[in-house]
């Protein structure tokens, strides 16, 4: 088990290192002179030189990369050119919206997908199965930002149950804040819940047809008992894989959904930064998101070992 965790950690660190190199290269090497790029075509030569100085672009590439990484490790994400304040502070303000939103959406996804998938698998071929599967087909096909727009019209503008956008802040109270996040979370969860329900169903059907389910039935377990005690945990392995991947889709989806609901989260930040050509912010936020994705996949790897005893021995 320890060995497994150690090798996984090694591969986590390697992935992070390579990902940071890719991001660094994309932002600081490909555009040529990032300072000139940020200031646009009409910039004066001395302004560019001043910015180069401010960003430390006169140092060698290796020095710049390592000082960026060292900064990241210390929690220093650099200073935003447009906001004139440390990126870490801006990101922290945004994170308190984006992180709860992703978590809320993930929770909704699982709350809907698990029962739906189990229900459909245990009644395979029935009208209920066809209905659930048809619903998930539709859920996968609907673009979530469009779904969000429709929900705003129905629930915010017509029924006035929710506000159409914006975020009151956590100071306004937990319930008020969660209420503002509810429509965005539903919009985010819809396609992911549909995918997860389908995966859950097919993973369950796979395990239900395996030999050890027949053994369990021969012991005298009912269909339901065999499903609960033997099929579910075995089906969790493919489900975990998808759940890990889904986290990255939730993060990416949040970038778009935040725009629909005017939520001041990381997604809004990144678009503002792009339009303002604030490369420092783009670089750090992308790195942060990629870090989150890699970390979640690392946790999923560890969860495998927890579910599957065969992995605890192997590499």
């Amino acid at each position: 088990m320890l060995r497994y965790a150690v090798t996984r950690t090694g591969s986590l660190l390697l992935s992070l290192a390579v990902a940071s190199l890719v991001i660094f290269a994309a932002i600081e090497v490909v555009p040529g002179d990032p300072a000139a790029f940020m200031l646009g075509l009409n910039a004066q030569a001395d302004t560019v030189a001043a910015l180069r100085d401010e960003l430390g672009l006169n140092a060698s590439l290796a020095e710049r990369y390592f000082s960026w990484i060292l900064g990241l490790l210390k929690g220093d994400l650099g200073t935003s050119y447009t906001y004139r304040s440390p990126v870490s502070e801006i990101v922290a303000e945004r994170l308190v919206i984006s992180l709860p939103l992703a978590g809320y959406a993930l929770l909704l996804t699982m709350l809907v997908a698990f029962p739906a998938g189990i229900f459909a698998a245990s009644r395979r071929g029935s009208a209920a199965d066809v209905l659930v599967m048809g619903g998930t087909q539709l859920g996968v096909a609907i673009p979530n930002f469009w779904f969000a727009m429709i929900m705003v019209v129905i629930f915010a503008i017509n029924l006035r149950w929710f506000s159409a956008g914006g975020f009151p802040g956590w100071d306004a109270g937990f319930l008020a804040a969660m209420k503002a996040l509810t429509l965005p979370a539903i919009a985010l969860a819809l396609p992911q819940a549909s995918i997860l329900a389908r995966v859950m169903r097919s993973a369950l059907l796979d395990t239900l047809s395996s030999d050890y389910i027949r053994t369990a039935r021969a012991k005298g377990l009912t269909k339901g008992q065999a499903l609960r005690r033997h099929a579910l945990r075995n089906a969790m392995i493919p489900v975990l894989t998808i759940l890990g991947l889904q986290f990255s889709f939730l993060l990416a989806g949040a970038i778009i959904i935040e725009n629909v609901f005017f939520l001041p989260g990381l997604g809004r930040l990144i678009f503002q930064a792009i339009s303002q050509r604030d490369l420092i912010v783009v670089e750090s936020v992308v790195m942060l998101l990629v870090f989150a994705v890699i970390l979640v996949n690392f946790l999923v790897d560890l969860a495998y070992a927890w579910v599957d005893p065969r992995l605890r021995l192997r590499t």
Partner: protein
Amino acid sequence: MRNLVLGFALTALFVIGALLSFLWTPYDHTVLEVSNKLRPPSLSHPFGTDQLGRDILSMIMVGARTSIAVAVVAVGIGMGLGVPLGLAAAARRGGWVDELIMRGNDLIFAFPSLLIAILITAVFGPSAVNAIIAIGIFNIPVFARVTRGGALSIWQQDFILAARVAGKRATRISVEHILPNIANLLIVQGTIQFSLGILAEAALSYVGLGAQPPVPSWGRMLAESQTLFMIAPHITLFPGFAIVLTVLGLNLAGDGLRDLLDPRIRRTAL
């Protein structure tokens, strides 16, 4: 079978619409007729007109071109690079080539296609081509994984040993024996990635990272109509329906193909 027919019918509808738009559209989608703006659906404009008086049906037909083109090229990039990589990884399973390819895959998986698009746009500016590249890059590891997984199970079969005894090399075996036997898998995955590509293009265009004016796009039609939803819901609903039905059609076709092809795979190959 029902799924397959319905799926193909929906897909065909949009492909035909897109092809037809090269020859004929009900109205010229580039002509602005402000006096005729925001008309609800009628006989002369079946899907109504938008805020600038353009015919929505014509725009959806032309927009289908963009969606399909982006998705086709992105799937092409994914297959063109992903399949050979997957075949190579499976042929050298456990070796450093395999390890390198799979680690590279994991790395790309850490960048959702939207993040790749953001990185590209931040540096090169938004365009349909950049959207294609972003979605295409994300497709590479998807196809590499599916190919490797399928190829690994075929490599276990005795007929591969027979081919090796007949003196054939790994490359030749991959092309002659592995590829035809995983073609089904790739076709099914292809339709899935195709539909995901259409969704991704719509999302990227919606946030302004994809197709730029004047190239028409379903995603941008939605973005431009967002504030007018209350006044003229049809300009938001019809492009949305176009996306949903196309993606639904492709997914149904993919599922139907899987059901159609899978039992035969199990009986004969695996």
